[in-house]
């Protein structure tokens, strides 16, 4: 394999990885936009989505099979379920804390994350759960490059979801309301926009997207466990920051960039796969220190 071939292979791998990151990063960025909170539990919603997808697949595989059709339906079910869970979490844990000091809200978010994680831990005993599907390993070759069908479906699905989101945000009433709330919440309230409802919808969508990513990840990688949300949460956060927190396009961009960086990064001889995560965290820290607004974010001017 020439360097050109391996470059393309890493590109493809990066795109696949980046799709996951982008989907999860979107939830982060959307929620941050409307309530200015980094939902620490977001990564765990991805994990919950994976388990929900697993459960959903068990339900439908009887009459829909465990191929892509079954997985899609399971994914939709998971998105619905986890979307609702997201709304519940917002109502129960975050909404009451809105006037509280920043520190308290952050710890509450951490607590929610821990509850989700440990609930999954209690249910599975900490073991990996096999996500059994009927997906084949078929694909086709483009020269020396191998593209599996699964990869194509995955990236396509993620793209469809992201396009749908983009349309929602720019064309629908709620989408525009969401953008308005992220700019000035109090003004929106005064203008009669039901801010609570907008926040709830934002959580629903954000959590749903994370669940979609979770289900697909489960199907693609074949196994899920209670702790899978932790790392992905951090990486998706990194992606959101790279793209500019608060910007939806930024999250998509950031996700792809991070996926590509990681994919190429692991092949740099010095780094290798053990240091992959350190590499990612270092990127996060560097971005936050030198360019906290990311690529597309707006800088906040602090007035006294």
């Amino acid at each position, binding site marked *: 394999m020439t360097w050109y071939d391996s470059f393309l292979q890493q590109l493809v791998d990066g795109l696949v990885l980046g799709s996951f990151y982008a989907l999860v990063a979107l939830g982060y960025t959307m929620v941050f936009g409307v309530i200015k909170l980094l939902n*620490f539990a977001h990564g765990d919603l991805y994990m919950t989505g994976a388990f929900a997808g697993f459960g959903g697949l068990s339900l439908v595989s009887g009459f829909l099979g465990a191929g892509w059709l079954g997985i899609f339906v399971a994914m939709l079910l998971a998105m619905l379920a986890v979307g609702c869970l997201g709304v519940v979490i917002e109502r129960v844990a975050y909404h009451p804390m809105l006037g509280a000091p920043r520190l308290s809200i952050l710890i509450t978010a951490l607590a929610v994350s821990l509850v989700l994680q440990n609930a999954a831990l209690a249910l599975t005993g900490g073991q990996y759960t096999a996500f059994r599907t009927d997906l084949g390993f078929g694909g086709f070759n483009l020269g020396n490059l191998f593209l599996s069908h699964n990869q194509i479906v995955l990236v396509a699905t993620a793209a469809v979801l992201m396009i749908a989101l983009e349309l929602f945000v720019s064309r629908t009433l709620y989408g525009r309301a969401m953008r308005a709330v992220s700019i000035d919440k109090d003004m929106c309230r005064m203008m009669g926009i039901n801010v609570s409802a907008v926040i709830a919808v934002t959580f629903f969508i954000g959590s749903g997207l994370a669940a979609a990513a979770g289900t697909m990840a489960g199907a693609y990688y074949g196994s899920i466990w209670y702790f899978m949300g932790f790392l992905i949460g951090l990486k998706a956060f990194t992606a959101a920051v790279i793209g500019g927190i608060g910007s939806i396009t930024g999250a998509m961009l950031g996700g792809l960039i991070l996926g590509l960086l990681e994919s190429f990064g692991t092949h740099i001889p010095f780094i290798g796969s053990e240091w992959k995560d350190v590499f990612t965290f270092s990127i996060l820290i560097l971005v936050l220190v030198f360019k906290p607004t990311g690529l597309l974010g707006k800088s906040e001017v602090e007035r006294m």
Partner: protein
Amino acid sequence: MDRHSPPTRPDTHEPRPRNPLQRLYAAFESPGRRRALHLAIIAILIITPWISSQYTTVILTNALLYVVLCLGLNIVVGYAGLLDLGYAAFFAVGAYTIGILTQQFGVNFWAAIPFALMAAALAGVIIGGPTLRLRSDYLAIVTLGFGEIVRFTARNLEITGGASGLSHIPEPSLFGWHIDSSIDFYYVFVVLAVLAYIASQRLFDSRLGRAWLYVRHDEDAAEAMGINRVATKLAAYVIGAIFGAIGGIFFSVNLGAISPESFSFQQSVLILLAVVLGGMGKIPGVILGAFIVVLGPELLRDFGTLRLLIFAVLLLLIMLFRPSGIWPEKRS
């Protein structure tokens, strides 16, 4: 008294102490009674190993270790208001520095301690320096990231023993007293916990302690009054790092072996949980929290993996209904 005594109660609308814990607290307001209480507690701590099993002694030693760690994190989170989710990194730096210096280079334990402390202080400056200017959400995640970086590094370097860590860390001796039994280490940790307690109290009542509160309340107003907020936060971070390192130093020789898994995010969370549970910023509360977090799992043994879930739910409930923690609010 050579410093301003805090008022017993602010005037107006503050309700009289009603619940048992508040009444208990109020009963010990006078310095004389306070001193007697301290001595009583120390006496109990000294006698305990002789009247209980070795197992209990080991558990209590662990609890005392947590007291030191939690008092350290309390300075960072409770006083300076910085949410540090990677506190275990300092714990790790202390432990690994000692492990490497004594086991691999044969340095005497006591001579190695200053190096471990300096390493931790350095880590505090490196991590804190660029990140303390960030807003609190970002700070939390970045400290988490740093914590993970430290753990990954420990897991992947040869000098730190890789995934299996370091073992055969030699036990220290002090003027001929070879510290090796669990009772020996118990007493060492009693001394450490007491020192941590005293240091925390003194810091809290000092110019720096007040500066932490000012910066935490209103950064800009504090800055306008001449307080260097970055330096103040960094001081909290570094001092917290030193507390953590002290815990790590003695932890490593106590166990004789350390592995990266002792310094995971879960560990950082557990320490944070104890601080929040007991009441951020309140020293007795933090100590109580430390004991709950260590003894709780022992008492909840039968619940298996469910017990972590119980703790998580407990944390959530505390944040929603009693964010100031279990310990009653006594005005600072």
